[in-house]
């Protein structure tokens, strides 16, 4: 991991950016000049990061409004140049969008955990719902070992609490 700039100091933001753009992307952010706007080639030269990697990072950030460009045209050659700057001030908004999507998924998973009984293979750890386990006579379809009831209460409780906390943080009623 590269050294962190202030916005990346929050662990969740650092983890998000790392998953989004990887080590080289973080390096680009770290080395991106503080002021001004730059072409991808200029950035590759200044940061000593491979041009393809710079482009990939910029487009990935752009998709989430974390980078912007201004396009200028050379009237003599007709060539277009894209001048980039970062918009890391949009990270909280991007993460809030992610949290909305996550909330929906956690609701779905919570319902599934609530509505089902689970059975687990003592040998290989395979987890099945009651219906699936019944179909295989409560023997693991992978390794044949007997399956035992799996109590998901702790998981469900933790999941519910986190789902509620996310909903509250997003301002849902």
């Amino acid at each position, binding site marked *: 991991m590269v050294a962190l700039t202030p916005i990346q100091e929050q662990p*969740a933001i650092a983890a998000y950016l790392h998953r989004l753009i990887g080590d080289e992307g973080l390096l680009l952010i770290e080395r991106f000049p503080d002021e001004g706007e730059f072409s991808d080639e200029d950035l590759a030269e200044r940061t000593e990061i491979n041009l393809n990697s710079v482009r990939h990072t910029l487009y990935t950030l752009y998709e989430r409004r974390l980078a912007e460009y201004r396009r200028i045209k050379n009237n003599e050659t007709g060539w277009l140049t894209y001048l980039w700057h970062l918009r890391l001030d949009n990270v909280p908004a991007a993460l809030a969008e992610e949290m909305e999507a996550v909330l929906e998924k956690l609701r779905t998973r919570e319902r599934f955990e609530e509505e089902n009984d689970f059975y687990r293979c003592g040998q290989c750890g395979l987890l099945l719902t009651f219906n699936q386990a019944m179909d295989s006579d409560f023997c693991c379809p992978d390794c044949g070992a007997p399956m035992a009831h799996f109590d998901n209460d702790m998981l469900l409780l933790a999941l519910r609490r986190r789902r509620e906390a996310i909903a509250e943080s997003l301002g849902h009623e």
Partner: protein
Amino acid sequence: MTVKTEDDAFEVIRSHRRGVLQSELRKMLDVDSRKCSRLVTKLIEDGRVERSDYRKDGVKTFLLRASRAPADPSLLLAGTELIPCVVCEHECVVEECPLLMDWMYQLAIEEIQE
């Protein structure tokens, strides 16, 4: 009439999730409009309250809402583990996702440790 502070005004505004009209706030706080306006201005300056134009029966007033804190992204972490759903490129079967299951285990462990 007791002296009303910005905190009193903020508590009233915050207790109305859909916002409260400035003209109503004045009555609730039992203060005159000048005092009410001064309290509201301070709350806006401090970023605690947002104000938007509002017309009630043709009369212009303001709708006041408590500013909401930005969503807390640390809720996407279980321990140091970011929830796998963020920037996920797998086909999503949320009921059976083993990565999500691992994250949920981490979440449950975190709860036990707390």
